[in-house]
């Protein structure tokens, strides 16, 4: 009986909200060169993508430029162990999306930028049918499940960078932030005894606000040091949900509607970066980020990244990097039982190639992310147990980017 | 004291850069004094790397391969040359084929001249452009050696 209830509640109203709900800060690597280097780019930051990593670096961009488009194809596979009866549950998504577009222009001592960044994107489409779940105490003939969801966070806005002195530059980017989340799911369960249960749920969230990113860059011969500070503040956030449920023991459908304001608090991000320009061929870099969270159930945490770029000749460059993508969720044991939790830190490896010609550069890259952790995927509202299950995730992304100089 | 040493090291590291030049002209005489007419110490060829030793207004004293002497600064360049027009010339190239060749950027100077056959019909013989005269002008090209000899030797005859 307990297992049966778990299956129901597995797909309860709140279940998938956790997956992409602002738990991670490094879901999207942008910029051809930066993403090849694990995103360890704060102290480099000398192309259009610098508007995001460290606006101060824009001063060192090579003339006016347009960073064509960076497209990434991302495939994600999450495996929740022994969740449907004894079976693992796998979720796969794949996305193809442009995640960065930017331009820079120099005016004397100032450099202007304008960019569009997708910092987070998730799209999911699931159609699953399980049949003849006989191992249950209360057998189920058919369990059909359908889920569509999309969650995108966009930033768009200008940047300004300037030299403060021969060795020190400062930059600021002010983005308009917009997030749109939509999810609809439906389920049908036909029991062995002839009864059935069905539900339809629809949730949409929209938030708008501003996202400020500032930075300093200090250069000393072959070394560069970066300090960045970022903060997003939401002006409005609306969540709207509807649910229709036909319970097993009833022939009527219940309808429920809820709307609330759910303004999330984004953390203060403090960043440090270092780059060593060893030679015209070799460059190594490292970044460290610290996030100060003030939302309930989130914790202060850090991320780190290291990267390297090596030019084989004046045309081809190889890049590689490693980064952490830690969760800002508290551990399941630290969160009230009613709330579902996913707790997993992820790691990523990147590799890329840059092909340089007179006025343009093409970058190709691959990003492999992985992690394993614990998930409490159903709340304790209707369950006696608050068991956590192991789960794993692997993400594989491909990136293509183009930069044009004038 | 140690911090002074560190700073001095920084200072000198960034300053120590002996000026290196390359000979720009086909042939140049290294002179014993900053004046044309003084003794010739050595003759240097194009793209020879030299190190600057001294400067006197428009003359530079340089050192190459153990020999030192003066040259006019007009003969020095910070970079090596791209090679002569001969290196751009690929006389074996089949100029008769009219297909536009995009295989390599290194088509020949000769082909550039004869590209009329293959290129878009850019030339219009409508009096606006005189190709016959251009061909004549190009036929007047004098041999490099002959020209240099003539220039260097005021007594030279055509």
């Amino acid at each position: 009986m307990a297992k049966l209830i778990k299956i129901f509640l597995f797909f309860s109203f709140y279940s998938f909200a956790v997956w992409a709900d602002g738990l991670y800060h490094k879901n999207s690597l942008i910029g051809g060169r930066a993403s090849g280097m694990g995103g360890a780019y704060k102290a480099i930051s000398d192309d259009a993508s610098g508007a995001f990593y460290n606006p101060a670096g824009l001063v060192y961009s090579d003339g006016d430029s347009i960073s064509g488009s960076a497209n990434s194809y991302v495939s994600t596979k999450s495996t929740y162990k022994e969740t449907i009866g004894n079976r693992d549950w796998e979720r796969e998504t794949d996305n193809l999306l442009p995640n960065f577009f930017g331009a820079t222009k120099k005016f004397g001592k100032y450099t202007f930028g304008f960019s569009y960044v997708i910092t987070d994107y998730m799209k999911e489409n699931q159609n699953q049918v399980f049949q003849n779940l006989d191992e249950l105490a209360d057998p189920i003939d058919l369990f059909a499940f359908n889920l569509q969801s999309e969650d995108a966070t966009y930033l768009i806005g200008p940047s300004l960078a300037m030299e403060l002195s021969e060795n020190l530059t400062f930059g600021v980017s002010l983005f308009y932030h917009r997030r749109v989340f939509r999810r609809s799911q439906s389920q049908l369960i036909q029991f062995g005894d002839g009864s059935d249960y069905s539900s339809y749920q629809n949730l949409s969230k929209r938030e708008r606000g501003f996202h400020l990113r500032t930075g300093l860059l200090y250069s000393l011969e072959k070394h560069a040091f970066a300090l960045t500070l970022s903060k997003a503040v939401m002006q409005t956030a609306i969540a709207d949900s509807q649910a229709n449920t036909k319970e097993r023991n009833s022939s009527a459908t219940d309808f429920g509607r809820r709307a609330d304001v759910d303004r999330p608090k984004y953390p203060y991000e403090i960043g440090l970066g270092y780059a060593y320009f060893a030679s015209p061929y070799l460059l190594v870099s490292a970044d460290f980020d610290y996030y100060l969270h003030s939302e309930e159930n989130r914790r202060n945490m850090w991320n780190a990244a290291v990267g390297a770029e090596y030019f084989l000749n004046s045309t081809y460059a190889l890049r590689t990097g490693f980064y952490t993508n830690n969760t800002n969720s508290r551990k399941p044991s630290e969160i009230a039982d009613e709330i579902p939790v996913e707790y997993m830190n992820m790691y990523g490896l990147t590799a890329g190639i840059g092909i340089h010609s007179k006025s343009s550069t093409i970058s190709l890259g691959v990003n492999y992310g992985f992690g394993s952790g614990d998930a409490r995927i159903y709340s304790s509202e209707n369950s006696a147990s608050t068991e956590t299950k192991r789960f794993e995730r692997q993400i594989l992304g491909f990136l293509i980017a183009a930069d044009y100089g004038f | 004291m140690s911090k002074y040493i560190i700073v001095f090291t920084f200072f000198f590291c960034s300053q120590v850069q002996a000026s290196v030049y390359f000979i720009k002209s086909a042939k140049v005489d290294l002179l014993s004094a900053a004046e044309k007419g003084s003794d010739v110490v050595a003759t240097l060829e194009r793209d020879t790397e030299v190190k600057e030793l001294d400067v006197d207004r428009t003359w530079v004293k340089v050192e190459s391969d153990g020999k030192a002497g003066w040259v006019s600064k007009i003969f020095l360049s910070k970079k090596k040359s791209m090679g002569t027009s001969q290196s751009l010339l690929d006389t074996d190239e089949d100029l008769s084929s009219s297909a536009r060749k995009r295989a390599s950027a290194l088509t020949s100077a000769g082909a550039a001249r004869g590209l009329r056959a293959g290129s878009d019909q850019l030339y219009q013989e409508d009096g606006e452009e005189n190709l016959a005269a251009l061909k004549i002008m190009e036929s007047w090209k004098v041999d490099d050696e002959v020209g240099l000899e003539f220039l260097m030797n005021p007594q030279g005859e055509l």
Partner: protein
Amino acid sequence: MKWLLLLLMMSQAFASHQQYRKRISQMKVEYDEADVLAEIKFGRELAAKILGKYQLLSDQKLQQYVSTLGAGLAQMIGRPELDYHFAVIVDDDINAYAGPGGYIFITSGAIALMKNEAQLIGVLAHEIAHVNKRSVVKKLKIRGDDDSLAAGLGVLIGGATASYRKALESALDKAFDLLFEEGISMKEELLADYLALLTLQAQGLNWQSYIDYLANMDKAIAKGQGEVVQKTHPPTSERIDSLNRHVKSWDESPKEVNQTRFKKYGKVN
């Protein structure tokens, strides 16, 4: 005081960081073979256009004299990747034109004004200096094709297209204007004069004679022989003043002008 010195020395050391940031791909050569070929191709077109407007002087000996001196000078101070071509064109006006790719024209009026070989060498050197600077090429952004995969894809992504013929025609018109109407920058004209003087000095020739030539040109322009040169060059008095400033520190000018040879070949018939 000690700290000030320290700070000064430290700022010296720190000033160089920008050079380290540059990657090897950014250390491009100013121009490559493809650019040179594009320049030559364009230069021929322009030369043909100039010869559509002006006639070649029929004096073969004079043409050979100019071409031979020019070839020698090209070896001395010219870009080795180019073949320089010289021609005297029929025009009473005093002028010389330096087209891209090394196509150099001198008017018969200019030759007639010259008194010796040193002056001719000076003028030829001035024109070669213009070709070396590639200013017409740079102003018109004449570049070689970038055949690489990256550029091709870049065009695809960037959606850039070029209508070659239209671009060429308008470039030719613009180049013609630059040579005959607007002029390259005045600063560059003065620099070319200076290089002409340096060339003469390096040759042990009478560089003062070039300045005298400019003075004679000034008089001739006053008489109406300088329609184009007035439009495209700084006032001759300014050119002379600029050169006089340069030579203030120089030793006295040699006297050699290669008069004999000039008398034989350099007279306009």
